[in-house]
C-alpha cells in the first residue's frame, strides 16, 4: 500500500510540475504602461496622499465597499465611481489596458482584479459605445416581437 501511495503522489506532483512549467513558458514579457496614453486626473488633487493611495487604495475600497453596500453608509470621497470619474479617460477601455488608469498598472504588476466585470470601466460622462441593435430596453425589444413570448404549452386548468 505504501509504495502505491508514493507512486500516486509522484504522479500527482509530476502533473503539477508539468502544469507549472506550461504556465510559465506561456508568459510573455510585459511592457510598463506608457503614461501618454493615460488621461490626466481631472481634479486638483487626489482625495488622499498619493503614496497612501498607491499602497492602500485596495484596502480603502474593500473596507468601505461593505459599509456602502451593506449599510448604505457611502463616503463620496472614497467611492469607486469617484475614482473612475476622476482618473479614467472617457476613451479608455477595459479591453485595451494600456489606455486605462487602473488596468495599465494592474496589468504591469500582474495583480488580477475583477472590478470591471460588473462596475463600468469608464467615467459617468463617457459617451455610450454600445452596439445600436442592442441599445434598447427589453420592452422595446419585445414590442418588436409579435405579442411577446409565446406560451410553450398551456397549463391544464380544471
Amino acid at each position, binding site marked *: *500500500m505504501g509504495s*502505491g*501511495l508514493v*507512486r*500516486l503522489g509522484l*504522479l500527482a506532483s509530476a502533473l503539477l510540475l508539468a502544469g507549472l512549467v506550461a504556465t510559465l513558458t506561456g508568459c510573455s514579457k510585459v511592457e510598463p504602461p506608457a503614461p501618454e496614453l493615460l488621461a490626466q486626473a481631472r481634479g486638483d488633487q487626489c482625495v488622499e496622499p498619493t503614496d497612501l493611495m498607491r499602497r492602500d487604495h485596495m484596502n480603502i475600497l474593500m473596507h468601505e465597499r461593505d459599509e456602502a453596500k451593506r449599510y448604505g453608509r457611502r463616503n463620496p470621497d472614497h467611492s469607486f465611481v469617484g475614482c473612475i470619474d476622476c482618473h479614467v479617460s472617457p476613451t479608455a477601455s477595459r479591453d485595451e489596458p494600456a489606455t486605462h488608469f487602473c488596468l495599465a498598472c494592474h496589468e504591469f504588476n500582474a495583480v488580477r482584479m*475583477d472590478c470591471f466585470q460588473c462596475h463600468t470601466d469608464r467615467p459617468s460622462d463617457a459617451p455610450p459605445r454600445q452596439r445600436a441593435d442592442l441599445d434598447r430596453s*427589453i*420592452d422595446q425589444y*419585445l414590442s418588436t416581437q409579435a405579442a*411577446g*413570448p409565446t*406560451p*410553450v*404549452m*398551456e*397549463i*391544464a*386548468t*380544471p
Partner: protein
Amino acid sequence: MTLKTHFREIEGRSPRYLLLLGGLLVLVALGLFAAVLKGTYGHHITGMNNQVVWGLPHIFAILLIVAASGALNAASFSSVFGRVAYKPLARLSGVLAMTLLIGGLVILVLDLGRPDRLVVAMTHYNFKSIFAWNIFLYTGFLAIVAVYLWFMIEKRMNRYSTIAGYTAFIWRLVLTTGTGSIFGFLVAREAYDAAILAPLFIAMSFSLGMAVFILVTMAMAAGTERPLGDLILRRMKNLLGIFVAGVLYFVLVYHLTNLYATRLHDVQGFILLSGGIYTFLFWVVQVGIGSIVPLVMLFHPVWSQSRRVIAAASGLVLVGGFAQLYVIVIGGQAYPLEMFPGYEMSSTFYDGVVASYTPSMVELMLGIGGTAFAFLLLAVVIKFLPILPTSLADAQVDPHAARSTASAQSAAAGA
C-alpha cells in the same frame, strides 16, 4: 468462516486499461472545454435561462452525489450490518463513493456563474442555507470515507474500521437528507416544499448507488479477469430490487399527499397528465423502464439468473433515476410560480406559462465530463492502491453457502 480475502492493485498495462484511461481523459477534456466556453460566453450558450435556472449539469451532479452516498452500501453492509460476504467489496465501495462525489461536485462548481469565486464559497458561510450545510456534508463525507478506507487497508487500524463504518453510514444518511432538502425546503415552488423529498432522495441513493456499484463490480471483474461468483451478484441484485421498490413507494406517497391538497392539483396534473415531456419521462421512463421493468427482470426466476439481465436492469435503474431527477429538477421549475392563485397570469417575463428548456451540448459535455472524471479517478486509484479483491468467487465470498449450492446442484444433476 470466510477465506482470507486478498486485495491487489491492478497491473494497469493492458491495452484495454490504457484505452479506458484515454477515453475517459478525452471526455474529461470535453467537459473542461465546455466549462471554458461557459466561462467565456456566459450561460446563454446553455439551455438554462431565467425560468429554468438549474439544468442538465445539476441533474448529472445530483445523480452522481446521490449515487455516491449509495455506492457506500457494500461497505456499510459489511461494517455496520456484519454481512461478511460484502467485505471483499468494501474498499471498492468506499473509493467509488468518494470519486462519484468528487465528480458531482466538479460539475456543480464548474456550472456556477462565477466558478473563480469558489474560495468565497469556502470563506463566507450563511448557516441558514442548505447549500452551506451541504458544503460541510460533502467535504465531511470525503474525509470520513478516506479515514474509513485507511482503517480498512492498514492492518494496524483494522479494528477501528467498524466505528468508521458506522460514522460513514450515519453521515451518508445525513448527506442525502441534505441533498433532498435543497428542494424540500423551497417553500415558494409547488413541486418542491415537501419534507418527503429527503427520504425519497435517501431511497434513491440506495437504489442508484447499488445499480452503479453492480455495474462497476461486473466491469472490474471482466476487465481484470478476476473471478466473480453468482452468489454476491445475486445478493446485490435482490437488494437492488428492494431499493427500487422503496423508491417507488416514496414516489407514490409524495404524489398521493400532493393530490389530496386542492391547491396542488394543478402542479400534479402538470407532472402526471399534461406535462408533455415531463409526463412522458415520469410514466414511461421513470416508472416503466426505470422501475417496473427492472423489478421484473431482477425477480424473474429464470431471467434473473443471467448476468446480462442483471447488468441491463442496473442500467435501466440508472436511466430511470436520471428521468426522475429530470422530472424533479426541470419539471418543478418549468411549472410556473403561482403568485396569484385563481388568476390567469401573463407577462413579458414568462409568468404563467410553462417554461421551455432545451438541454444544450455544452451542458451535456459538462455533465459527461464530470462523470468521466469520477471514473477516471477510480481507474487511477485501483492501479495504485490495493482496492480490488483478487477473487469474488463464491467460495471466497461465502464458502458455506457456496458448498451448499454446489451440493444442491450436484444433487439436482444426479436426480
